[in-house]
């Protein structure tokens, strides 16, 4: 399994960046919750970090080709759990996304991210044609679409949407024609008015409108975005200091240990702190792409690039919401937001990428 030689082939820069972000995240969770009713969460997050590291080591240890062979099993288990949730899921904040396992709850949707990535990469590596045909495209849509639909039914649209970059990256790297891309981009743009008038719920419209103009409703829907921007902006160049952020410590900042944790960081650590964390995220993405380029086979390429798609999109969406560039969606910041399921799945996914790097050279 884990050969001695492989230890020397760990991508230390990637590993360090991932751990650094997770450690900073635990610190910010502490700052977000200290002295309040949630003050135990920082300790729990540290425990999740340890469990996540175990998952990472496990994902590195087993050859990714073996994992690919097993991917139908993992994928199947995820889908069964997601179906089970629709009937027996524990509702937290109106979403039946939680599975109760004794004292802890976990979100199968987070696990499904990794298993879907594995199943998709497995499929993409086995196909032999140079062009992306209709049958291939349909398979991609089916593999990703099944968990997406199940998660959207919970209903957790935000989490479901984070799967979509997998389709895009698989199709793009699988060889979809530029002409087809153009059509695929045009259709949603043309369909937008239809979508707006017939399919979006009122609260979703409010979110979009509020995003376009947060001052529209400063005490209602725009409140979160406004307070988040105030937190980020008031951090200035060097920040107000650890545990000194007024927006966070006085609870003006919403969901500050989960979706808005980056705002807390920006407030307490200023532009320098947010720049460092943003750079660390970029290093992670940069290393994943580099690993994809040096992968020894297409399975490795798709695993690494799929992880890039999942990871980068979540980071960009989350921070985009925090700084007011996007409407509120409820996507956690990978590796930093409080939450065991997200942390563990992110670390397991990173384990897969490290796995690809470690086994890039053919024996």
């Amino acid at each position, binding site marked *: 399994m884990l050969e001695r030689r492989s230890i020397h082939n760990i991508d230390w820069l990637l590993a360090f960046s991932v751990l650094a972000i997770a450690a900073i995240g635990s610190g910010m969770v502490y700052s977000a919750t200290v002295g309040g009713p949630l003050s135990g969460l920082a300790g729990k997050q540290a425990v999740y970090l340890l469990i996540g590291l175990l998952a990472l080591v496990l994902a590195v240890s087993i050859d990714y080709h073996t994992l690919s062979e097993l991917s139908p099993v993992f994928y199947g288990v995820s889908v069964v759990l997601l179906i089970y949730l629709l009937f027996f899921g524990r509702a937290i904040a109106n979403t039946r996304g939680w599975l109760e396992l004794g004292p802890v709850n976990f979100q199968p949707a987070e696990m499904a991210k990794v298993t879907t990535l594995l199943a998709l990469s497995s499929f993409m*590596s086995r196909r032999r044609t*140079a062009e992306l045909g209709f049958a291939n495209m349909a398979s991609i849509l089916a593999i990703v679409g099944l968990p997406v639909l199940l998660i959207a039914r919970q209903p957790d649209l935000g989490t479901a949407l984070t799967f979509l970059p997998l389709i895009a*990256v698989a199709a*793009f*790297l699988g*060889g979809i024609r530029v002409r087809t891309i153009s059509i695929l981009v045009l259709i949603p743009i043309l369909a937008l008015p239809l979508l707006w008038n017939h399919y979006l719920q009122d609260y979703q419209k409010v979110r979009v409108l509020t995003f376009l103009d947060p001052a529209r409703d400063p005490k209602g829907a725009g409140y979160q975005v406004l*307070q988040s*921007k*105030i*937190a*980020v*902006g*008031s*951090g*200035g*160049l060097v920040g107000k200091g650890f545990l000194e952020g*007024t*927006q966070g410590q*006085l*609870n*003006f900042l919403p969901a500050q240990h989960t979706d808005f944790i980056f705002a807390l960081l*920006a407030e307490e650590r*200023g*532009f320098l702190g*947010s*720049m460092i964390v*943003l750079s660390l*995220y*970029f290093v992670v*993405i*940069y290393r994943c*792409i*580099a690993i*994809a*380029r*040096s992968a*020894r*086979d*297409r399975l490795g*390429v798709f695993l690494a*690039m799929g992880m*890039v798609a999942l990871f*980068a999109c979540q980071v*960009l969406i989350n*921070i*985009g919401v925090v*700084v007011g*560039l996007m409407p509120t969606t409820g996507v956690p910041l990978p590796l930093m937001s409080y939450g065991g399921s997200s942390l563990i799945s992110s670390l397991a996914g990173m384990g897969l990428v490290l796995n690809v790097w470690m086994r*890039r050279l*053919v024996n």
Partner: protein
Amino acid sequence: MPWDYRSSKDFKDFYEERRLHRRITFIFVLLAGLFLSYLSNLWYLQVVNGENYRRLADNNRLRQVVLNPLRGTILDRAGRPIVRNRLSFNVLLDREKVIDKEGIIRTLSRVLNLPEGTIRDRIARYKNRPVFEPVIVKEDVDLSEAAYLESRRLELPEISVAVEPKRSYEQGELAAHALGYVGEISESQLSKPRYAGFQLGDVVGKAGLESYYDGDLTGQKGWKQMIVNSLGREIRELPAGRRPVSGNSLRLTIDLDLQRELEEGFADKGGSAVFLDPDSGEILALVSRPAFDPNIFARRFSASEWGSLMNSAAHPLQNRAIQSKFAPGSVFKIVLAVAALESGKAGPGRTDSCPGYAYIYGRRFLCHQEGGHGTIAMVEAIKKSCNVYFYHLGRDLGIGLISQWAHNLGFGSRTGVDLLHEEAGTVPDEEWKRRTRKEPWYPGETISVSIGQGALEVTPIQMASFAAAIGNGGVFYRPFLLKSREVRDGVEEAERVGEVVRRIHLKPSTLQVVKQAMWEVVNQGGTGTRAMIPGKDVCGKTGTAQVVKASAGVKSEKLAESIRDNAWFVGFAPRDKPRIAFAVFVERGGHGGEAAAPIAQRVMMKFFEKQEHREEPAQIARTSQHP
């Protein structure tokens, strides 16, 4: 970086490999661009606009809390407190600490003697308030209840007792109309420039001295800066801020002893009275009945209490001493006498014969004495209040001269007392009748006015001021209630001296006649005998008046002596060097000599008794100011 996909066995097609390579690069560049734009956005938010957002964050977290000053106290002329600020105790329930809601409601119900339903209602009223804001379960509880709850803080951690200053009118209804009351500022007051800086909920003077001297009593607000969280809960205090400055105390001209004597003299009768120092205009006592208890305005009192005060037919909130307008009745005969003597139209020796009635302008006017007074001269006509004498005198003087002298003697215009909403009353004449009624003056009206009826309207404070001017020889002082005020902590301004509004020249002979007549009214078996105090030479004049209706016709005198009439007694004492002047008005009191004179006597007896026991220092200073 190793980049050797050409050696990979899985890739057969070089073209496909190159495309994959290009597309990975495209993704990398796309993501790099997005990250850069995010970074520049953060730079813009945090560094370029950081100051703006920091200000917004401060707006969020800092709250200026206004600290209300204590209102100034109000003292009587001797420095005895009449209005103070008392500590009241409110029982608060901290909903955050409540574990057993039913249990605590039962406990509160038992301790505070309130029905459980009431407590439940009060808690329910706070449903939409932040949970840390305590519920006021009961306001202004007894000290014993407060002490009981305070001693059980350990067992009942969710209950606390908060101390709040409340306006306290120590003497209850005593002098209620002079003092006035306080209440929460109204919307209309808020829009006035005088109340700049006030907010809804602030307590301001609403009537009486509380309102007139509100600027002195209010003091200056202070403030402190609190750090608050998103729910508005105060987390801690910042060192910045200013302490509130308490309002200044007022020392009144009112003498509590005389005031109490006067109130007791009225007992349960309605009416009003003013007692003045004739040499300065200081108001020694002022009463208006029925009264109200100003303390109920200091509480957040119930709608029913408010309604009963506002809608009562007796109008307890009206300050009758300055606002009620009545005919002066026979008191006005003094005005006619002065007018006749000063104008030379008649001397004291003018005699008339009273058969009990008189025919003037073809109409029969009655005297109150059946069978008449016989042949009668001026002093005796005043003493016996003979109507026929003054019908004829009035007819000879004419309404112009009567009206002129009524104005000279202070009627028809406000005295300028330091209270709001004083009425001016009415002195009718031909021009007034044309202006207001669009009718000519009928000669018969002059006859009614001659005995103080008709359209004449005077206020009790005008009557007192008039009596003082007769007593002191023609000097009108502005009546006032504020003797001195605190200008800053513990330092009083100089005592106010009388302000002369008008000096009228009266011949010594006129004064001699009028004073003699008024002295005889009390001391020689006249109508005011019941005000007599041996050795004090009380001078006075009785009067009876019906409530002035819109148009008082000539027939009013027929009702003049009916038992339901209002009684005046107006005068001063002692005759030669008056120390006190007064007007007492008793509603439905019947004859002035019966109802009003004993009240005046009672207060004057107290006044002279106090003077003999202790010569006030103010008394000595005053002699030099005498005109």
